């Protein structure tokens, strides 16, 4: 609640700061300060709220739970890390630097609504607030045709999926006469369900699959991620996606967990397709940026695991899984993007010989890639571990677990190609700008976070109750 207000106010403040300050550098500094302040607010709100409590606001439109606040805090932390790492690059994208940061504040506002909504209308509003700033950010590099293309594509596909979402909400309302997600459980019964409700549920699932880029609704992802300025791709592919996943999980956990029989198989097929398309297509990419776009689809497949698991009795693994995966994936991906953005050449060859010329960059990149590939002692491993455990516990989808693990083995191929290029191939990569000490410290922090997530995950889980 406090965070929602704070991010809105700070966002507006940020826009005005753009008028007041003419110097781009000072705008970036202000932005970092404001994001740190927002991070402080989310921490305060988390500490201030007793564990296992839940609070209803605005005529029950929002329900604030401890896990939501925990997730908000972590995602805001990731955003702060992102802004600190990418600030200089955001500055280079275009003229309206302050507006870009303001839009990121608004995206976070949407994210906070998506983690606490208790009503389908709030879900809709949250998704819109989350998406519209992204359409702008995607097209922010106006001189670049690909960026404009990405923006238009994103907008059209986003509008289309929003239509489907609304259709689904309408159908559900028709079947149950309510928008409140905590009511569906008592109104819809598994054995005597109105077909309209099933149709509505499937429509919503499809719409949310668009947002999290699950196959076969993923077609927009590679073009949008590739076309957008790299600085913004890093944000869209991480924090925003994790937020959409949290909303997805929340709906299916609270409303539809007793109807698992009606949607588990469909979602399992979507998951398998996502894993397959993401991993197999990533293998054939020549550009690392495009590879990361497909890898984000592949990782989405693993995050879908958490949603699959909520139809079982014990959903705590799924909840933990999505929070943990969101953080581990975000930190590692933001890290690898912030290395990528320093390079002139985005192909694999652009990484050749990085270990010789910039050993520190090569080392941290390897840790981030290890994490994405799910090698033990990195956050990515524990994240995969949690979501896999959640599904094994659910009990009926062992085939999907094994399929996913085979796909994870494929992912090693394209992640390690970067490591091979950095360490084992000769060459001297060209850098856009020299690496400053500040960059090094921030990258070292991200790298330490990734390792800490893998070695002592308890730290990130104990703080919120069961």
């Amino acid at each position, binding site marked *: 609640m406090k965070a929602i207000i704070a991010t809105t106010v700070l966002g507006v403040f940020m826009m005005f700061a753009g008028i007041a300050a003419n110097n781009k550098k000072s705008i970036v500094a202000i932005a970092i300060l404001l994001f740190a302040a927002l991070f402080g607010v989310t921490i305060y709100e988390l500490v201030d709220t007793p564990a296992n409590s839940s609070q209803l606001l605005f005529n029950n439109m929002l329900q604030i739970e401890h896990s939501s606040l925990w997730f908000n805090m972590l995602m805001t932390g990731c955003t702060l890390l992102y802004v600190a790492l990418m600030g200089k690059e955001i500055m280079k994208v275009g003229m309206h630097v302050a507006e870009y940061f303001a839009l990121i504040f608004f995206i976070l506002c949407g994210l906070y609504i998506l983690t606490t909504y208790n009503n389908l209308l709030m879900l809709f509003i949250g998704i819109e607030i989350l998406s519209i700033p992204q359409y702008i950010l995607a097209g922010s590099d106006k001189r670049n045709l690909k960026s404009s293309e990405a923006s238009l594509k994103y907008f059209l596909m986003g509008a289309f999926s929003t239509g489907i979402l609304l259709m689904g909400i309408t159908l559900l309302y028709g079947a149950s006469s309510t928008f409140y997600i905590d009511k569906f459980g008592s109104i819809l019964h598994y054995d005597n369900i109105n077909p309209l409700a099933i149709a509505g549920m499937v429509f919503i699932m499809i719409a949310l699959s668009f947002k999290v880029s699950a196959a076969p609704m993923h077609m927009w992802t590679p073009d949008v991620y590739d076309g957008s300025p790299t600085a913004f791709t890093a944000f869209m592919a991480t924090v925003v996606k994790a937020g959409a996943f949290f909303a997805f999980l929340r709906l299916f956990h609270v409303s539809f967990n007793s109807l698992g029989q009606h949607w588990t198989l469909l979602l399992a097929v979507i998951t398998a397709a996502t894993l397959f398309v993401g991993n197999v297509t990533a293998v054939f990419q020549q550009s690392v940026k495009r590879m990361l776009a497909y890898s984000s689809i592949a990782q989405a497949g693993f995050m879908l695991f958490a949603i699959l698991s909520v139809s079982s009795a014990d959903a705590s693994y799924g909840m*933990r899984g999505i929070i943990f995966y969101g953080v581990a994936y975000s930190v590692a991906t933001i890290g690898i993007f912030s290395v990528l953005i320093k390079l002139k050449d985005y192909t694999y060859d652009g990484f050749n010989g990085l270990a010789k010329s910039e050993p520190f960059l090569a080392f941290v990149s390897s840790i981030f890639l*290890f994490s994405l590939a799910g*090698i*033990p*002692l990195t956050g990515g491993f524990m994240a995969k*571990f*949690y979501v*896999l*455990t959640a599904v*094994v*516990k659910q009990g009926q989808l*062992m085939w999907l*677990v*094994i399929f996913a*693990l*085979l796909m*994870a*083995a494929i992912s*090693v*191929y394209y992640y*390690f190609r970067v490591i*091979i290029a950095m*360490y*084992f191939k000769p060459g001297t990569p060209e850098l856009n700008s020299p690496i400053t000490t500040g960059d090094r410290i921030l990258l070292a922090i991200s790298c330490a976070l990734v390792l800490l997530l893998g070695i*002592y*995950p*308890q730290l990130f*889980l*104990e703080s919120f109750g069961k």
Partner: protein
Amino acid sequence: MILVLLIIIPLLTGILSFAIKGEGARILALLSSGITLGAAAMVSGAGFAGNSTFSMPWIPSIGTTFSLLADGMSSMLCLLTGIVVLVVFLVNSNKEVERPGAFYGFMLLSQAGLMGVFLASDALLFYVFWELALIPVYFLCSQWGGEKRIAVTFKFFVYTFVGSLMLLAGLIFLSLQSPGIPSFAWADIIRAGRALPEVTQQWLFWLIFIAFAIKMPIFPFHSWQPDTYEQSPTPVTIILSALMVKMGMYAVLRWLLPVVPAGVAYWSDTVIIMSVIGIVYASCIAMVQTDIKRLIAYSSIAHMGLMCAVAFTKSSIGMHGIMVQMFNHGINITGMWVVVSMIENRWGTRDMTKLGGMAISAPKMAIAFVLVSLASIALPLTNGFIGEFMLFNGLFTGHMALMVIAGTGIILGAVYTLNMIQKTTYGNAVKMVIAKDLSINELAGLIIIICLVLFLGVYPKPLLDLTSGIAGMIVK
């Protein structure tokens, strides 16, 4: 606490080593491996008296603890790891490597992983160390290996990684079987596994076994092995063949046989037949190799095949034999590789058809080579004999026909090994090279090996005593 030291010392010195430029790394590595060996010897000494354990909380919410256990088998393998790594560092201590800091750093990290695998008594911890041992080896082979190293090592990595992931799925499944909160503790995993219905155990068996079969490697999962051994720098080949394959064998004994007994009973004939095919197949291929490194690689498949076959016979003397043979095979093959790397350095080739006359130009080296080769074909009074004898004894009960077929492996083994000795050591080379004989550090390394070969050949009792309790327990 001393168990933790076994992991911590190589881990910390390994990390430290990356920071050191130049010669310091070599000295640090020698020092570290010496201290680790001392600690391992103390653990083994205590192993006669009973098990030592260590435990501290790690991630309680998923039921995993940082718990280590050293029984006879674990402490014996830790001792082997300590000896082999020290010998490797010793014989390489007068050789130049590129970027020694990174090289020794990776070596030590991989030692830490190996120690962890042999000591872990928590399934998730075991898995973490299993991977930790692999990653440094991947970097070692890819950076310091032969010409085709990148492709070959990548194949090796993907191969073993697929196996590991299957293992992970199996372990997660098992951990969730315990009532109430999940648990990864060894005892709970065993209890959970045994309580499973027979059909479940049957598919679970493969989920777990594939990882181990790839590591050992068992026919038909072996295709990564000869290439990787050939392309790796010899110190890494030693780590791979003397220690990492033991990881696979050890894991079968610790994490497979007791966990899914019904699955093992159902598939044991299949695995034994696969292993025996592997023995004969690898021996036949070894006979036509001209590259010494490849020859020894194939001979290793044959040796591991025999151990794996016996592991599935439920014979307690056979089981005991496996443990003794794990140690002896580790020692012998280290000796072989050490000499092979010297040959490669001095003659500049590994091709048997171009070698010869080692006995004239480097007599000490020739003696060492002959001794370890004889031990490797299990001549009586060498350490190989007692283990092989017990293995065949184990296979004999119940699988006589297969024993006879596997026995041809011994004969073929003598054929290719003696042929190799004959071609490299005696006679005349196509091109005569005046080679330097052993330097002092190489001599020291080989003396350790040869003393162990002879001592354990004549008096294997300490080794037998150390592991006697475990064999019976696994069969039960």
